[in-house]
């Protein structure tokens, strides 16, 4: 067992005849920002689904803080401190941005069913405090003014931000981001970078991010893992990875790898 926050060890995931992840091993160190990149279909989303519990591994183990979690349900893993965003935003469309974030905060409330039925003082205090915390999170990701707008009505970039705010509301130790920068403009990517770095610094958050956008990946990652065809083909700090021949080959093909000088 390494001292890492998250250990994915020798995990294989199969869907029917397709091997989505092949003997994958990945460790995420506490307090680090790690990126997972790779061409489409490389297995990145599957990796995320295995960590969060939406997919099960045919072989291998997944451990969080040294404890095995393969048999735990997704919501149990969230309660342990793993939070995620979704590639195709899975927001609660009919609810406002504020309410979306409040859902994430809900299990930290101090009131139970009886208070919920009677709307006691405890309920009122808890709800007011939650509302405030939710607003703070919305401010953090830059959509504070849109608190009462229905999530489905928000523009795409803001929906991405809401996904992150909502995930943060669950008070995670590990934040998994599924292509958070996809479709964002350059300025939005920069502001996202700032937010993520700030989160790591102020909340000692560990972040695992999947993305294609190099402006994000190169700028904030301590370590990058490169996947292709369900296998890890390279791993290291940004500089090492960017010039690794296997990586260039995977993205650009054999000839380009030669061209870049091996």
């Amino acid at each position, binding site marked *: 067992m390494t001292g890492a926050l998250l250990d994915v060890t020798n995990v294989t995931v199969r869907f029917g005849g397709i091997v989505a992840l092949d003997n994958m091993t990945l460790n995420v160190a506490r307090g680090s920002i790690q990126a997972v990149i790779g061409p489409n279909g490389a297995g990145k989303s599957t990796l995320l689904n295995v960590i*969060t519990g*939406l997919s099960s591994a045919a072989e291998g183990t997944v451990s969080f803080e040294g404890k095995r979690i393969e048999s735990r*349900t*997704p*919501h149990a893993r*969230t*309660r342990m401190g793993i*939070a*995620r965003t*979704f590639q195709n935003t*899975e*927001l*609660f*469309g*009919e*609810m*406002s941005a504020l*309410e979306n974030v*409040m*859902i*994430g905060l*809900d*299990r930290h*409330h101090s*009131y139970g*069913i009886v*208070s*919920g*039925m*009677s*709307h006691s003082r405890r*309920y009122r205090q808890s*709800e007011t405090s939650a509302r405030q915390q939710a607003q703070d999170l919305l401010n953090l990701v830059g959509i504070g003014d849109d608190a*009462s*707008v*229905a*999530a489905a009505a928000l523009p795409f970039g803001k929906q991405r931000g809401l996904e992150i705010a*909502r*995930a943060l*509301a*669950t008070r995670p130790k590990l934040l998994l981001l599924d292509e958070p920068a996809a479709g964002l403009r350059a300025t939005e990517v920069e502001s996202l970078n700032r937010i993520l770095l700030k989160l790591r610094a102020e909340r000692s958050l560990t972040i695992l991010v999947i993305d294609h956008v190099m402006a994000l990946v190169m700028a904030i990652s301590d370590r990058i893992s490169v996947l292709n065809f369900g296998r890890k083909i390279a791993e290291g700090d940004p500089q090492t990875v960017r010039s690794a021949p296997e990586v260039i080959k995977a993205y650009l093909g054999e000839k380009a790898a030669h061209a870049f000088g091996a």
Partner: protein
Amino acid sequence: MIPRLAISAIAVAAFFAAPYFLAEYHLFQICLISVTALVVLGLVVVTGLAGQISLAQSAFVALGGYGSAILTASWGVPLWATIPATAFFVALAGFVLGQLTLRISGHYLALATMAFTAIVQLALIHSDPVTGGASGMPVPPFRIFGRTLASGGELYYVVLPTTVFLFLLVRNLTHSRFGRALAAIRQSETAAEAMGIDVLRYKAVAFAASGFLGAIGGGLLASLSTYLDPAQYGITQSVYFLAIAVVGGMSSSFGAVLGSAVFVLLPNFLQSFQSYLGLVFALLLLGFIVLRPEGLASLRLLRNALVPAAKSPRASR
């Protein structure tokens, strides 16, 4: 906007004044509307809020009515105790039924809950010694505080407060983190799960709640109708309750009251067309689900006039 306290005061005054102004028949109808609204409230919770299709409501009503009547008839325990006790056990049954949602949803859930209703009805018909079989059984009189409550005007004093109380509880819960969780589950189960919500347990609890409300409604309904007839507790009745929920507005407790009022009062206006009643109800359901699936409660005019402005978990449109 009238302050909430004033509305409550007026409501309480109206409650006590009504029996002096209204005939027995009207009081009976008010009771019927209340009881129906309770049953439909169960659907509002499980289908409107949590998004789980359920055709089991009529089975819960049957179990509530028969269960409490049989307990009272066999052991002499008064109805005011056996109805809640039975409801508790029916809630348990609902919780178990809700576990089905681990494996199935949508069409299969509709089918499974239909099968459940059919099984319960058949069980009641074939348990002659206990339930009176196909010919049904009479309901013991409702005794409380040494009095016997028989007419609509008398049961009124039990039915209405119970209904209002349960409605308040449900409404409060809707506006709490529990209601939020159900709404989240309805909109995206995947995301709800990712937010730490135990989706399966919440869905099972929603079924349990629909069972509890259905059973209380069933118990009170039995007292009002004084006779239990198994033919009244089939899949057709489940669809009837669903129709009320759709027409009234499935996602709000107010919708349950609205829909019940419409369906209970409508026969009064169709005096000569009694045999076409079922058809009218079915056409209402069809019309609303195609043209206005959010139901009557969604009409702005009604909402602003009658519902005090409370914090709603829904975003403003």
